[in-house]
């Protein structure tokens, strides 16, 4: 057992998967000699060489396209987006090429696209995105968004070993801010399974990534006021673990969904629809949500703080919900 940051856990997963399986290769901008913009690939080039850790031109479409091509030969490429915002540049390769390949002509694309995402570090409107919902709407992709070092390592390993294109979002606010003891050696976390982070009876808060921590923080505040919140960390967004959400709502009867992504078309809508379809009779209150604003992520700290949900906003919504 060693205490590691989420960033180190990711680096370990990459290192161990490449060490375990020579079909695992990496492509990305500045991932080789430099070790990546966030140093997530540090040391990989020295260990595995330029044929396996490929520094590419600034061409996201070419990176993802080439990763598709390599996966057709039985390789398991990991493509890095320097910031996940730049995945917009290769949207077509991801959604039309990689995602549809298996359905249309039976050609699996065992590829991982990973990159730092999320706001809270003053990255500004082009380095803070949470673009998960563009891809949740794309059958054929899997979308993973961990919140802990343990999950990051275990889920990244599962993503590498998965036969489908997996988008692996790494919340950059969490990269170096959380530390955790994780077991030595190989372990995986299955894709598509949510986890209950805090047991509670009064209401359910569903969240993921950095907002899972915010939700837990709010839950502790609420506990002092006698409101006992259950907190679910989704970990995987596609496939979505609907069972865990429904089971929780059936015993708390109240649902609050928290995400950093913008409000309209965010995953809260999908979760609310699921609960209304399958557990309407169990609800004692309307479904609440706390989300990012329907704006780009602004740069200046007071603006960014206004954009982001925080523990106070979550607690305030939970108090309202508990009143019903």
């Amino acid at each position, binding site marked *: 057992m060693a205490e590691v940051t989420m960033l180190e856990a990711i680096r370990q997963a990459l290192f161990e998967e490449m060490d375990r399986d020579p079909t695992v*290769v990496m492509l990305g901008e500045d991932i080789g000699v430099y070790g990546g913009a966030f140093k997530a690939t540090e040391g990989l080039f020295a260990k595995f060489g*330029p*044929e396996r850790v490929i520094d590419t031109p600034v*061409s996201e479409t070419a990176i993802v396209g080439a990763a598709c*091509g390599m996966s057709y*030969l039985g390789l398991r490429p990991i493509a890095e987006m320097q910031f996940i915002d730049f995945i917009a540049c290769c949207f077509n390769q991801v959604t039309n090429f990689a995602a549809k390949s*298996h359905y*249309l002509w*039976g050609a699996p694309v065992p590829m991982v696209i990973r990159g730092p995402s999320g706001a809270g570090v003053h990255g500004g409107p082009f380095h803070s995105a949470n673009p998960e919902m563009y891809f949740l709407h794309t059958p054929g992709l899997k979308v993973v968004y961990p919140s802990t070092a343990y999950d990051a390592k275990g889920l990244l390993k599962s993503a590498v070993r998965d036969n489908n294109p997996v988008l692996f979002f790494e919340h950059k606010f969490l990269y170096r801010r959380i530390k955790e003891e994780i077991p030595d050696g190989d372990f995986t976390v299955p894709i598509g399974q949510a986890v209950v982070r805090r047991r509670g009876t009064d209401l359910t808060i569903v969240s993921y990534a950095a907002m899972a921590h915010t939700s837990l923080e709010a839950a502790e505040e609420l506990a002092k006021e006698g409101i006992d919140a259950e907190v679910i960390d989704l970990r995987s967004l596609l496939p979505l673990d609907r069972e865990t959400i429904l089971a929780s709502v059936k015993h708390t009867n109240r649902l609050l969904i928290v995400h950093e992504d913008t409000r309209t078309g965010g995953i809260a809508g999908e979760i609310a629809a699921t609960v209304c379809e399958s557990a309407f009779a169990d609800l004692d209150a309307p479904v609440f949500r706390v989300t990012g604003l329907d704006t780009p992520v602004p740069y200046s700290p007071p603006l960014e703080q206004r954009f982001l949900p925080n523990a106070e906003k979550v607690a305030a919504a939970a108090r309202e919900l508990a009143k019903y």
Partner: protein
Amino acid sequence: MSHPVQPSPTRSLAHSLTNDQHLDLYYYMQLNRQLEERMVRLFRQNKIVGGLYSSLGQEAVSVGTAYALEPRDWLAPMIRNIGALLVKGFKPRDIFTQHMGKYTSPTQGKDGTSHFGDLKQRHVVSPTSMLGDLIPVMAGVAMGGRYLGQKIVAMTWIGDGGSSTGAFHEGLNLAASQKAPLVVVVENNQWAYSTPVARQVPIRDLANRAQAYGIRGLTADGNDVLAVYSAAKEAVDECRSGRGPVLLEVKTMRMRGHAQHDPAEYVPPAMLDYWKARDPIALFENYLTENNIGETGRKAEIDARIEQELDSDQDFAEQSPLPPPELAEQGVYCEGCHTIEAEWRRPLAEVMPPASSVEAVWTVSDFGAFRPPAALPRPAISVASHLKPATHAAKHIAKPAAKPPEKTHGKPPVALAPEPDLASAPALRVPFGRGPKDRAFRQEQQNAKDARRKDKRGKRR
């Protein structure tokens, strides 16, 4: 490093083809054409459920290029490359059933047209309708094949229209920077839907784009199957020997509309007449007759075989069932239905250091400094020719780094009168590392100003 575009040595390599191989080319071209003619009839009978895109007049491109590949090589066709699919071993029934949306089609009805592939046997990657996408994908195939030690070449096609996409440039640049064994065939059929090539790009030869990537560019007559084959073979051989990628432009003509719905009235009739007289199959038939290939009934046998094959495959397609509706819900994800296996052709130890190098070496001569483009062919109208003669100040700026222009041997070329030598056009040059924020730079400008002022004063007196 740049390579000027070279017209391919027409037919030079084609002499190495046997008579049987010549007849192979004929077979595939004629099969391609007859198959498509039948599909036009099926379309008119409402038996093709979607669109139908014709490659009439472009058969030599698909067949001639794909014929230069070996069975282990990979290709990814575009919409008008049915001929390449036939060369790679797909059967007419695959094309018929695809277009008719039948359960027996390679995609079981999930996609139509030439959108299908085969990873394991024929090494064909399915296209999408987004033009240019295949180029980075096939660059990845080429890189992956090299990594596994398979010594394969990857080939894909792009139209004159698709060559304007970002994916085309990103893919070609990645392939070039990786020296990936990739042949990109630019099938210049003069029209991107209704837009003529001259209105899409300001250059005559699309293969000229190769220069920008420091790779070889070839052009070939796309209606001469032997010329296409020769050029493609050269490109494939270059790639196989590690000198890829290669950009091969073949000039041809789309003889029908973009698809069946398009009467293509925008095409000048004279243009159609010109190309009709250069029909690739008619040209090749003449060649065969002149060279006594396929006489004694062998060509007639092939024609009969094609008819028979198409009869039986069309019948198969028409008799085939449509897919069960519930198939629509299946196969989005691979859930253990496929095993991912790489075919290693090199020792695993070789891909890891110390056997594989970890040296980060970039060989950039002059550390990337500006070099006068003296060796490049000068454009007819140069940017410099519009500039006024260099001012005093500009001369001063240029002085420290200015080298005398390289001397050319023999007689200096007769240059157009107003065109100054690019190499000595100082106004364009900013010495490396210097600019308006540089103190010495500003000082020099000031000195020049002062000198001019002094000059004027002197004159007044």
